[in-house]
């Protein structure tokens, strides 16, 4: 951020998006300021993951502007400033013979750059990130042999290892046990408050989330609400009824099993970044 000091980490201005003529997002306006912790909620199929893909540059908006750190995503280059944990993080090929250490190292690659190799201090950072999510015991274990929740932690470590300024998490706690979820939220809060990392958390767990976030956005094709948590709490019932038709605080929801054919997912990327 030495070149410019944008007032917003993320800006979306009048963004529209459709998958093959089926509109999914309409007129999205959103601003995320540095240091905030945004909880993004909305029913299944409301376009949350799509919105995240737009701001990661994996999809291109039909209309409107998406800016990261003050720069249009199209020309944004400093991707090591952005960490992302995908909703489908654990749908990778579980037979893949890579260790936890090797997987978390991947998070460093963008920062290290082409034609360069991980140095001692990079490897130290990898170990620290693994310790941060409490997986040091499994450092040299094969990733495929871990449980779903453990794998999820490893992917969180991978997102953290490059010390991003913006961390985007798409339903990261699916498959993680209740105690670990609490620890996980504490960890996020710690990252947000003490390290000043801006967070965007997509979740269905509105109850647990609201103890930690600073801002809330409610999405269902368009943004129904976007503001600070206090305003959200005050109007919560209204918001929930508008979005879901009734007040839902905790939605039983498990995405761990709904991955589609993996090879097709890759195709989503084909047209945009690469």
């Amino acid at each position, binding site marked *: 951020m030495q070149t410019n000091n944008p007032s917003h980490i993320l800006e979306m201005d009048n963004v529209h998006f459709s998958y093959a003529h089926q509109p999914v997002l309409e007129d999205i306006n959103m601003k995320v300021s540095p240091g905030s912790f945004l909880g993004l909620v909305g029913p299944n199929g409301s376009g949350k993951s799509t919105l995240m893909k737009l701001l*990661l*540059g*994996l999809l291109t908006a039909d209309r409107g502007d998406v800016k990261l750190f003050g720069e249009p995503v199209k020309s944004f*280059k400093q*991707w*090591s400033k*952005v960490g*992302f944990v*995908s909703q*489908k993080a654990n749908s*990778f*090929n579980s*037979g*893949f*013979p*890579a*260790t936890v250490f*090797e*997987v978390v*190292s*991947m*998070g460093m*690659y*963008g920062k*290290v750059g*082409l*034609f360069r*190799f*991980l140095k001692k201090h990079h490897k130290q950072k990898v170990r620290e990130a693994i310790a941060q999510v409490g997986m040091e015991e499994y450092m*040299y274990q*094969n990733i495929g042999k871990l449980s779903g929740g453990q794998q999820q932690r490893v992917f969180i470590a*991978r997102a953290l290892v*490059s010390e991003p300024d913006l961390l985007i998490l798409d339903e990261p706690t699916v498959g993680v046990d209740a105690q670990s979820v609490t620890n996980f939220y504490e960890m996020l809060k710690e990252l947000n408050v003490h390290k000043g990392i801006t967070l965007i958390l997509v979740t269905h767990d509105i109850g647990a989330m609201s103890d930690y976030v600073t801002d809330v956005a409610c999405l269902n094709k368009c943004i129904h609400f976007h503001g600070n948590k206090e305003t959200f709490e005050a109007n919560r019932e209204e918001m929930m009824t508008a979005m879901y038709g009734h007040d839902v605080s905790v939605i039983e929801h498990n995405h761990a099993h709904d991955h589609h054919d993996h*090879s*097709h*997912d*890759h*195709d989503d*990327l*084909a047209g945009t*970044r*690469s």
Partner: protein
Amino acid sequence: MIEVFFQYDFLRYSLFTGLLIGLLAPLIGVFIVVRRLSLMADALSHITLTGIAFSLLLGRHINFFAGMNPVYMGMIFAVSGSVMIEKLRHTYRFYKELAIPIILSAGIGIGVVFISLADGFTTDLFSYLFGSVVAISRTDFIVVLLLTSVVAILLFLFYKELFFLSFDEEQAVISGIPRRSLHLMFIVIVAVVIGLSMQIVGILLVSALMTLPVAAAMRLAGSFKQMFLYAVIIGEVSVLSGLFTAFHMDLAPGGMIVVINVVILLFVLAFTSKK
């Protein structure tokens, strides 16, 4: 038994080439297998056959081609084939694997037409199909050495990007890795390695040398790096013992190399399933 390989130049070059491809084919094979592209290697090897047939056909009519090693034409075909596969994979976004049978059958079909147009090179063709112990000249060897070095350096330089792309393409793209250009580089490398390896193992069996050692290594390895190590060891053992037995028993080396690979794989499977 081994000494004979040093007594004759042509055998020595075959031996050295064997050593190089025993290294190269399993190295690239690791990425091919984890990216689920094993069948692409097959399609490209068949396109190589088309190029070889084309070169042999030209050689009957044009002097220039008569003196050229047909493998180079094979490589040119394989590289163009790999680019076409990429285009087709893009066209059939939701049925990517369709690209492979299209290219594979087109390759064989056109190759067969070329072969029948110029009937009468069956002995040559046999050694291209199943490999040969005596196919390598000094110039060929130098080309193999140069290309092996280039490929090895590229794999080394782009190791971490290829690793990331193989494991999790979406995340790799997000982190800013140039997916398209790396993938293109990768398939071109595969085409080149096929061209190099087929002189020893033959077109029909070249993809076996890329996948079988990796299939065995996968059962043994605890990490991605170990997979390379085991795959290369198995590749070298099979190529060397295949060459020796093929020479002494007058067999096609491609066949022996694959048989040895299969035996190793069976041993590994038997051994690892007990654990």
